Structures are given as structure tokens and as C-alpha cells.
């Protein structure tokens, strides 16, 4: 079953969907979708929806939501940063536990830039038993402004905030700074739980992160599985790739139950 939910964070409402197996009392583990920069809770080609439905069929709970400023949640994109995304994830974790009326373990599923959010969460939350990463980007990205928009900075028309355009969105200064300065590989390296990282063979964006995680998996005694989807792009833009990503993710998730 699919249960819509709402959480208030800092006077703004964030909204999400919980994909639940039939028997709530049997839920041992929850997979929480932590998507990337300008994604949303459905995400490209409905990959999150499909993953949630498959996960629930296999007996575990899958939760996806929109951060403040993204998708259908309240707030504006230029108010978003890694800090606010982390706050939102922690608020959702707290909400889920109050809904189930018990503490539980979580797997975080970080998609693309969402891997950065995951890296910050695992530093502060002991509830995270495993991490699954789809096309993770953990290294600094220095130029996220789209090339064909001539000016780098604008004043957002309604509030006057200093923002930079990215496609149809205004990006706040804080988020741009975080993306261009932070390398979050170390936090993943220090994580003690199980890790699955999936990369597309045709994805140039993840090269640095892939090299880093491959190095970590080969040199340390860590439970990291690296999986490749040959020729797949960053967002898995073919049906066969979507199915492979979901299948690998759910199978791996079941090993943590």
C-alpha cells in the first residue's frame, strides 16, 4: 500500500509517499530515497516510484519525499542547500519512527548529488545500517551554471535574493558553494555499514567518485559492492537500465533484512 505523509520543517510542509508491505509490524528495515540536486520524489522515468513498488512487493518499506524547495513540497529552490536537505531527511526519519511507533534501521538510497546528503547523514545518525548509491557524485563540481544563460548571478524577482540560474531554477549561493567546495568521499569511507554503489558505464559525471569508491573497496576491509550497468547514462534513461538498477538495489536491500 502507498501512504501519503506530511512533515513540517521550519514552518514549511514537506510531502512524501511511503510504500509499505501489508503487515506494518513486520517491517524491519526502511529504505529512504535521498535524490539529487534538482530531482524530485518521482524522479526520472518514475524510477523512484517503480523502486518503491518493487521494494514493497518484496516486503520492505520504501519512503520517498520532496525536500523543501523541490518537487511539490513548500519552499523555494534557492532556499535549499545541503544543510536544509540533511535537516529534511532527519525530520522524515523521525516522522517514520513515530508513525511506526518504534525505532528502526534505515538504508539511505543516494541518487547522484543525493550521495552528498547521505554522506552527511551517516556522520550524525547511528540509525543507518546500509547505503545504496545510484550514480553518486561526491567530488566538488565547479560549474553548475548552464552555459547558454549569459549572466551568472541575478536578483530573484520576488525576494531579491542573490541567485544563479540553472536550467529553469534559481540556485542559492549557499548550495553553489557547498557543491563547488566539498568532497564527501571521506564520510562514505568511514561508514561502517554495508554499501552498494551502482554506476552507469556511459556516465562521465561519476568518474572521480567511481575511482574513489573502487579504490576504497579494494584497499580496506569494507563491505562495499560496486556494480556497473554497461552503457547506462547518469539517470538510467532506458527501461532495461531502470529495471537492472531496481533489481540490484532490492536484492541487495533484502540481504540486510
Amino acid at each position, binding site marked *: 500500500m502507498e501512504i501519503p505523509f506530511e512533515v513540517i520543517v521550519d514552518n514549511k510542509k514537506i510531502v512524501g509517499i511511503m510504500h509499505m508491505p501489508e503487515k506494518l509490524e513486520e517491517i524491519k528495515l526502511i529504505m529512504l530515497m535521498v535524490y539529487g540536486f534538482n530531482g524530485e520524489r*518521482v524522479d526520472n522515468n518514475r524510477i523512484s516510484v517503480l523502486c518503491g513498488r518493487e521494494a514493497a512487493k518484496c516486503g520492505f518499506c520504501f519512503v520517498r519525499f520532496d525536500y523543501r524547495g523541490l518537487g511539490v513540497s513548500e519552499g523555494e529552490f534557492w532556499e535549499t542547500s545541503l544543510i536544509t536537505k540533511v535537516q529534511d531527511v532527519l525530520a522524515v526519519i523521525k516522522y517514520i519512527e513515530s508513525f511506526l511507533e518504534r525505532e528502526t534501521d534505515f538504508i539511505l538510497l543516494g541518487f547522484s548529488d543525493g550521495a552528498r546528503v547521505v554522506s552527511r547523514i551517516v556522520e550524525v545518525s547511528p540509525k543507518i545500517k546500509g547505503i545504496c548509491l545510484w550514480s553518486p557524485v561526491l567530488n566538488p563540481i565547479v560549474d553548475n551554471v548552464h552555459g547558454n544563460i549569459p549572466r551568472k548571478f541575478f536578483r530573484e524577482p520576488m525576494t531579491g535574493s542573490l541567485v544563479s540560474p540553472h536550467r529553469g531554477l534559481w540556485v542559492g549561493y549557499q548550495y553553489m558553494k557547498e557543491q563547488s567546495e566539498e568532497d564527501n568521499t571521506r564520510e562514505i569511507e568511514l561508514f561502517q555499514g554495508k554499501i552498494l554503489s551502482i554506476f552507469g558505464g556511459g556516465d562521465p559525471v561519476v568518474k572521480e567518485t567511481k575511482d574513489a569508491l573502487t579504490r576504497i573497496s579494494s584497499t580496506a576491509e569494507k563491505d562495499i559492492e560496486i556494480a556497473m550497468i554497461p552503457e547506462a547514462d547518469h539517470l538510467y534513461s532506458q527501461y532495461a537500465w531502470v529495471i537492472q538498477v531496481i533489481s540490484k538495489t532490492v536484492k541487495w536491500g533484502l540481504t540486510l533484512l
Partner: protein
Amino acid sequence: MISQHCISEKKLIGILHEPAEKRDMGVVLISGYSLPMCDVDYFMSKLARYLCGNGMFVLQLDMRGHGDSVGNLEDVDENTLIEDMEEGIKYLSQFTKNVFFVSRGVCASLACVFLEKEIIKGLVGICPYLLSKDVVKQLWVGLPDRQWYEGKELIEGKEYRTLEDFDQNKIAFFNALGVRLRNILAQKINGNFFGQLQKKDIGKQFFLVDKKKILILFSSPTTKSGVETFYVSEMHQTVELEKYISSGFQRNPVWQYEVSKVICDWLIKM
């Protein structure tokens, strides 16, 4: 404040925006075909907040096979789109008897049927689907009839980020539908729906209804705001593919903001 709802027995997911200071009017927002209710660049969410800030009830809705709602895209055809958009109207009619409709691409064109209803006071089409059936048929010559088509079978390329090696005419076709190309490649399009686009001039619906109730918008490099408004009487019944490349929906926050202003002003005047 927003609230999330499961509306109708069809289990469609919607977000209701309730204004603090209320006008007696409501707006149903429908995203481009295959896209979730927030739409590309969260355009419909931004528009919803803008309209709600100006006193309107707003409903964002996922139709079947879209976003969080039940079903898959391959089960979506003209009939299901119209049925589900009508559920949105029914839902919003609980709050007001003055309902407006705003949509992009093919859903805007299909929504013309609602203008017969007393409760529907106006329709805004943002780059609505106005392609000729003959042009569409020409694009897909040789394609066999099938129950569904995977997006990548219809348009091929490898440069997924820039789309520079994808066929430009086919990109224009998908733009006209209101699709974000990267969001359709791994989904399946209903064969019957696809076939209807080659047999019917869907956009002609605009020219059969009360023209005073319609606003059509495209982008334009020549206007100061970048937004070109059309009144139906000025338009040809079909437009060329190229218009959906040169004058289609812009992934530019300034343009999207200007469009929101134009729509809001028009709705208030109605």
C-alpha cells in the same frame, strides 16, 4: 498551506494549495505529458504558489500513469487523460464554482472539451499541442502498430545530457506533447494514443470552442518579457514542428516567472 490528497476512486494523488485570502476561483494545473505534477523545473509548483499567493485555490494533479498516481504510462490514452483531468475539476469544484485550467502540451489541447462545462471559466495552454496529423504521420512512417512503444525506440541518440545527436524534428514533436525528453526514454507510450496523434488534429479543439475563454502562450525572443500571447482568432489551426524548438517552453527561470505573471493577470481579469 498545501495539503496532499488521494482524490477520486481512481486513487489520483494531488496537492491542494489553499490561499490565505481567498478569491472565488480555482485553478487545476496539469503538467506536460508523462511528467509528475511538479513538472519540469518544478514549473507547476512555482506557478501554483504564485497563483495561490494571489488568492486562488490551486490543485496540482498526477493523472494515471504519471507521477505518484496509479498505473503506468503505457495504459494512458486520450480517454484516461480526459477522465482524470475531469476528476481534478470535480475535486476543485468543492471549493469554488469558478474553475480554470492551465496545462502544457497535449493535455492543454485535450482540455478544450471542458470549456463546454458551465464551471470552467477559462483555459490557458502553454505551448499547447497544435501539430498537424499529417506532419506527425510523416515523422513515424514505417513504424508498425503496437500496443506500446518504449521511448528510446521512437527517438535515438547517445548524448543524453545535451541531446545533440537526437533527431531535432522528433525532439520538437515531444516538446509539443509537453514531454521532457530524458523523462520519456525509459517509459512506454500507449500505442493507441500514439496512433491517434497521427489520425487527428487534436489542436483543432481550440478553434471549436468559445475563443474568449482561451489564452495560448509560446516563447518569443522578440518580446520584452520573452512571452508571446496568442488569441485563437489570430492563429493558424496547426503550427510547424520548428515552433516547438524556437518558441517552445523555456528552461529559463526568468521566462517561467514572466509566464506565471501573464497567466495570473489573465485569470484575474477573467
